[in-house]
Structure formats: structure tokens, C-alpha cells
């Protein structure tokens, strides 16, 4: 069983870190994972994409061809990758940053307020953790504890509490969306 995730955003939104945490969470959970990314030469403001493949078996081809999950925090990112999803895939967008009503190939189309939630916590920088919490709840293939462990090893300890809060709020958003 192999599940492919694609996260798209602008550079600077922490999407690659989110991908790293997501992949490491899968490893913590005893699964295999490959994470790759692509970004332009600029570290901020350009297009950024993180891809994670999670599987029980060894992963040969390491790239995402058709995503099971497309998570979009930028309009150009969404527009570019909207068609490259599996039939019946789950699409998750930030409702304030991406304008899209539905996707003909999507089995589920979920709009969530990641940025707004982070802003409410006073730190836009944790948008990615909100998103990650939601994806954790919606996809439900990595245990929440395993993912939180990965959060801990990847964010500075003085911001840990904030990040965990963001993650939990996102998780709650995702849980509700799933229902």
C-alpha cells in the first residue's frame, strides 16, 4: 500500500519542513517514506513543492506521479498540479489563499482556514503546522503521536508549545472536516 502526498505553496510558507515532518512521522510509525521537494532559486516568494510517499514496502520510484492527496496553499501551485491527481484523490486547500470550487477528479474537496488559524495564534509562521495537523487527521495513515514526535525533533524547542498548539488546532479542523 503506497500513498502519495503533494504539498504546494509559496516559498517561505514552511511547506518543505511540513513534508519533512510528515515523512519523519511515517518513519517513527515504522513505515517507509521518501520525501522530495522542488523550489526555484529564490528561497522566498517563489513556488515550493514538497512530496512525500508513504508505504509499508520499499519504495523504488521516489517521485509522485499522481497524488492521492493534494494540499495547496498557493493559487499557482494549485493551478499547476490540480490535474495531476489520482481519480478519487483528496484535495485540501487553504480557503483564503486558493480560489477553487471543486476538482473533477477529486473524491473529496476540503477547504480549511490554515492561515487564518495561524494568524489567530499570532504567528503566521505556524500555518504549516496547522496544515499538517489537518492532513494527519484527514489522511489518518500516520499515528498522531508519531507525527508529534517528528514535530518535536524538527522545531526549535522554544517554539515547541506554539507549534504543538497549531498542530492540534489543525488536527481538530481536519477531524471535523473528515466527518
Amino acid at each position, binding site marked *: 500500500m503506497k500513498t502519495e502526498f503533494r504539498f504546494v505553496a509559496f516559498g517561505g510558507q514552511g511547506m518543505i519542513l511540513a513534508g519533512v515532518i510528515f515523512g519523519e512521522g511515517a518513519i517513527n510509525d515504522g513505515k517507509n517514506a521518501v520525501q522530495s521537494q522542488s523550489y526555484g532559486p529564490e*528561497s522566498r516568494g517563489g513556488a515550493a513543492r514538497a512530496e512525500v510517499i508513504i508505504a509499508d514496502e520499499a519504495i523504488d520510484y521516489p517521485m509522485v506521479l499522481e497524488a492521492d492527496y493534494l494540499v495547496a496553499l498557493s493559487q499557482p501551485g494549485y493551478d499547476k498540479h490540480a490535474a495531476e491527481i489520482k481519480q478519487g484523490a483528496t484535495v485540501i486547500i487553504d480557503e483564503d489563499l486558493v480560489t477553487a470550487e471543486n476538482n473533477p477528479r477529486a473524491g473529496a474537496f476540503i477547504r480549511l482556514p490554515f492561515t487564518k488559524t495561524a494568524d489567530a495564534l499570532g504567528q503566521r509562521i505556524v500555518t504549516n503546522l496547522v496544515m499538517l495537523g489537518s492532513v494527519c487527521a484527514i489522511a489518518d495513515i500516520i499515528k498522531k503521536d508519531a507525527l508529534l514526535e517528528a514535530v518535536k525533533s524538527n522545531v526549535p524547542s522554544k517554539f515547541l508549545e506554539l507549534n504543538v498548539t497549531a498542530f492540534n488546532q489543525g488536527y481538530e479542523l481536519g477531524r471535523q472536516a473528515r466527518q
Partner: protein
Amino acid sequence: MEEYRHRLMDYVREEIMPHRFCTGCGCGTVLNAFVNAVEGVGLSPAKMVCVSGIGCSSWIPSPYFRSDTLHTTHGRPIAFATGVKIMRPDLTVIVIAGDGDVAGIGGNHLIHAARRNIDLSVFMVNNMIYGMTGGQVAPTTPYGVKTSTTPHNNVEPAFKVAELVMTAGASYVARWTTYHVFPLMESMQNAIRKRGFSFIEIVSQCPDNYGRRIGLRTAVEFLHQFKEKAVRIDKTAGMSEAELADRIIIGKLCDRERPEFTAELHALTRRIVAALKQEQPA
């Protein structure tokens, strides 16, 4: 509301704006000052060649400034520019690149071009870090700063590049910061007009890859610091080395007349050709 268009958009490659510098990056301000300087000098970009290397600030002319542009390999823009200038002395050749490019990997070309006193204007954007590759130590990084490749401590002192270039023989040398935009613009005009090697070190901010390492998180904090730390060169006379250690000395370091290389070279060639013509055919 009518379509907004900046009055100097003709000087930039508008089709690829907005540029890709990070929020608050000093490179944008340098581009702005440079465009204003070129307009102020009344120079047609069609008579300019801008040469740059590899690094964020190399993007200032390449691709954003709309003249002939030569985007070269890392560290070598001055060498490339030397070839351009020798063969087209009528064109104004300008190098804009970063501290790593010009003073690090390309340090040898810098001192030799200054020694030759070739008529180039080199605007070195000094953000004290390798920004494009993510924040590694540069030859201009101050002692004691932790970077991604000096995570424990930087134990190397920083280069004083402007002073080095002055010693090497340049005609015009100045240092400004991205806060001092009006004198910077004026200085760029002087540098462009100067016959000979002119060099401006522009102390600039990199909030994303340098600022977070020294506790300055935004461009605003950087500019405040530049404003506070800057000291005009004419005020440094009575100051001790210790007093100056943490300051940014701004202003014109030198402005002098020295024989210019391409002029000398072409005059020599003319003399040789003329001498040959006077010789009787062998």
C-alpha cells in the same frame, strides 16, 4: 483608476517583474538606486553592458536591468567585463555582484582589475553572507557570527573590501548602505562618470538568511542598525580602532586621477600601428 506604472519601468525588464528577491531584501533597493543613478547620469542603457556573477545580488542587473547583460560564472564577472570593456571601450561596463562573488571566489580578479585601473564600475552588494545558497559564512561575515557553515562560531575576521580595492589602485572607492539611498545614488553616478576603476561597497540587508542569525528579523531592523552604526569617513579622524570596530564607515574613500587601462592600451596599439605604417615595406 488608470494602470499604475513606475516612471522608471523602462529601465527594468518589466515582463519579469515583480522580481524574486525576498521581502525587504536590500538587492531591490540597490536596483532602485541604480536605476535612478543611470537616469540621473542621463546614460542610455543601450550603451551599457551589465555583468554579474552568481548570487542574489547578481540578479540585480541580470535579468532585471534592461541593458545588454552578461550573467557569468561564479566569481568571474570582472574578468568577463574586462574582455567586454577592452573591445568596446565606448560602452559603459558595470559589474553588480555580491561580496562572495566579488571578494570571495573572485577576489583575485577584483584586485587585478583595480590594479590595472580599468574603466569598470563595480557595485558590490555586501550582505555579509552567502544568501542564495542559504546562509553560509562569507569573507565579509563579521567575527563571531554563527552561520550555517560556522554553526559554532566564525573565527575568521571580515574583509574590509573597499579599503582593499583602494590600496590595489582603484580611481574611485566609496562605501554606503541601503539606508543611505540618496548619497548611494549620487555616488553611483560619480562612479559611472569616473574614468578608471570605480568601486562602491553597498552594505545591504539579508533578513532571511543573515538577519535571523544575528537577531535582526526584518529589513526595518537592519536599516535602523545601518543608520546607527554608520559613521561618515570625515568623522573617523579622531576615532580609535576599537571605537571603529563595530561601525560601518561610509562615504568616499578615494577619488583620484590615474591612467586608465583601456585608454593606455588602445593608445599604445595606435602608436604601434602608426609606427608600422611609417616603416618601409620590408
